[in-house]
């Protein structure tokens, strides 16, 4: 892939709102100065007790320690156990068809999207679980009745015949309301997000010299409520 082509591709994916698209007009607060990197090294001429105190301070603030932290996805695969075997096979096929490898970027299967969505939906409220469960069941059922094979075994053309009629153009936050349309369109959105927000996708983009998508300003818990033990 030429560098130019790859950059164009990245440019288009960068714009994809892989995070919530309508943050409450968050203000561009003043860019904070770089974090202090700890107490400056004391000049050698300072009194011994001051140097000792500075040394103690360095112990308390172990600046410069490089901990090579990683994320588990770099080495491990999510164990899927929420969906039934048939539902999971249907979801894998949706991922394969709707988010293939393009321009050298990982596809949804390489990004672990099916396993991640199995985890995510398994941890979700009942209405989302119901939407996915019944949607996957219906997709497989329609494949059986139309092509007499499970959706997991359909060709690309057969998958297109089953999926395309349900795709809609929709404004973010307002997906279709008809339940099956809603499932097809939201599952597509989720598959793209799970893929493009994956670590393997980020590595692929970064290795091309571009800024990866899915980077945002993360707010830590701010002085959260304390635990109570009595």
């Amino acid at each position, binding site marked *: 892939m030429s560098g130019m082509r790859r950059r164009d591709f990245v440019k288009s994916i960068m714009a994809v709102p892989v995070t919530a698209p309508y943050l*409450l007009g968050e203000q561009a607060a003043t860019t904070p100065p770089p974090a202090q990197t700890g107490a400056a090294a004391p000049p050698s001429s300072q009194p011994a007790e001051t140097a000792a105190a500075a040394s103690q301070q360095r112990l308390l603030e172990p600046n410069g320690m490089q901990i090579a932290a990683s994320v588990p996805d770099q080495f491990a695969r999510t164990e899927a156990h929420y969906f039934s075997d048939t539902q999971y096979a249907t979801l894998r096929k949706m991922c394969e068809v709707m988010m293939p490898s393009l321009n050298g970027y990982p596809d949804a299967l390489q990004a672990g999207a099916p396993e991640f969505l199995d985890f995510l939906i398994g941890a979700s409220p009942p209405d989302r679980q119901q939407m996915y469960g019944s949607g996957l069941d219906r997709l497989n059922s329609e494949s059986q009745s139309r092509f007499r094979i499970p959706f997991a075994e359909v060709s690309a053309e057969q998958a297109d015949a089953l999926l395309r009629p349900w795709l809609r153009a929709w404004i973010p936050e307002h997906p279709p309301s008809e339940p099956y349309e809603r499932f097809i369109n939201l599952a597509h959105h989720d598959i793209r997000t799970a893929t493009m927000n994956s670590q393997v996708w980020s590595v692929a983009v970064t290795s091309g010299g571009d800024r990866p998508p899915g980077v945002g300003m993360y707010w830590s818990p701010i002085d959260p409520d304390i635990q109570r033990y009595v």
Partner: protein
Amino acid sequence: MAQEIVDVLIVGSGHSGGMAARILTEKGISCLLLNAGPVVDFRKDRELKPAYELPYRGFNMPGRLPHVFQADEFNANVWVDEKEVPYTFNPQHPYNWVRVRLFGGRSLFWARQSFRLSNYEFKAKDHDGFGDNWPIDLGDLAPYYSRVEAIFRVRGQADHLPQYPDGNFVVDDSPWSGSMQRFVNAGTKLDVPVCKARSAMGVDGLASSINLLLPDAFNTGRLTAIPNVVVRELTVDRNTGLVNGAHFVDRHSRREMYVQARVVVLAAGTLESTRLLLNSGLANSSGVLGHYLTDQVYGPGIICSVPEARNGKGSNGIMGGSALIPRFRNINTKAKNFLRGYALNCYSSPRGMSPSVFPAYGAELQKKLDSYDGSGFGTSMMGEVLSYYKNHVSINKNVVDAWGIPVLDVETAYTDNEFNMARDAVDVSVAMAEEAGFEVLCKNYEPNPPGYSIHEQGTCRMGDDPKTSVLNKWNQSHDIRNLFVVDASSFVCGGWQNPTMTILALSMRASEYLAEQMRQRNL
């Protein structure tokens, strides 16, 4: 043990509380400000992170903040947790109560659109016969708007439209982009005004109480602020009938505290101020406390593409910029099936398109995204919600928050007026886009649930008659003369405008009145 009686107790640190603190301390009055949440440290509390480092890859944590559509995994920690401070509603009529309790409140995150109300809002009943007039008009508030606009450095252009009053602007004389000029021309043809947007520039990228209001108050040496304390109830002197203090609880330890005050100013945000009054059993001889809840209709709009900007051709001055279509319905003509009106935010985006606007997937979708990149144009509606007595909040004594304080039950719903208005807003958007030669890719008629706009107003309305209103025209309780409520709960109606400039102007005006009353020893 401290038993000092504070001169003025201010509850809340957002725009309204910050303005009250600034004005009162500059007038020589000592204030104690209480805030329910912590102080933000912008250096410590946030950092850039890739989504894959977050537990849910950038998806919302399942089940968290189900009524804050603005939340995502990156910003989830800035919103009030719905389990920690719950509220209730009929599931058939959901309400999105979007709250921030950090020091500075929602002033940390607002979208900074800065508008004045016009006399089409202040004197709405005179114009169309519905609802009630405010006890003040634009002339009363204009001097305060001007001072607020100077503090917040509002950028805009004079348009000389009575429904879109001009202000004290940093003049925006930038030219329209090519696509926006075409939209302006389409508006001229269809008799729809397309104006420059108006926005608070603030200072150093922030237009919050924490950088524009509270620093001046602290510099007087007369302001003390306590974060992380949740006010439970106001108390009243039985002999005088005046408010004389507040019970509050330490957010972390749950230690119960009490402070005495000569005057109380509530600025906790529309529904929290009203909740506190309802839980205190105060200021409700009229029986309208909690009633006339309104907000604004958000959600309806369209997304288009500017054909000439596709395939990398959008960089030649065609794309970029934003505009505002102020209310134009029911000004000189009468709409057939709704009262009042709406505004439209318009934007021309040189950035990428959302994949959801294309009914495609895989390589076909990518081809669309590549081709349409940088050609997006859209509108979104901001519509007035009519003010009805039946839309109200009350205390649900069966549910309490993390500090044992009874929560609010919200009962409100949109009517045909709002739905008809939304349909008109989208149809007008489509007509203008097609007149401008844009391709309309998708449209949405469905409003987001009430509350989504984060512009909740009313429930503690002002008025001249103590039998039909809670506050007088100075934001002062009719019942308790040393009690003031200076946030948007005082609004009689909300119009289509972002309420922030009006909240700030009202708080400034009320605080100067309060200071003068204290100087004359009337309080």
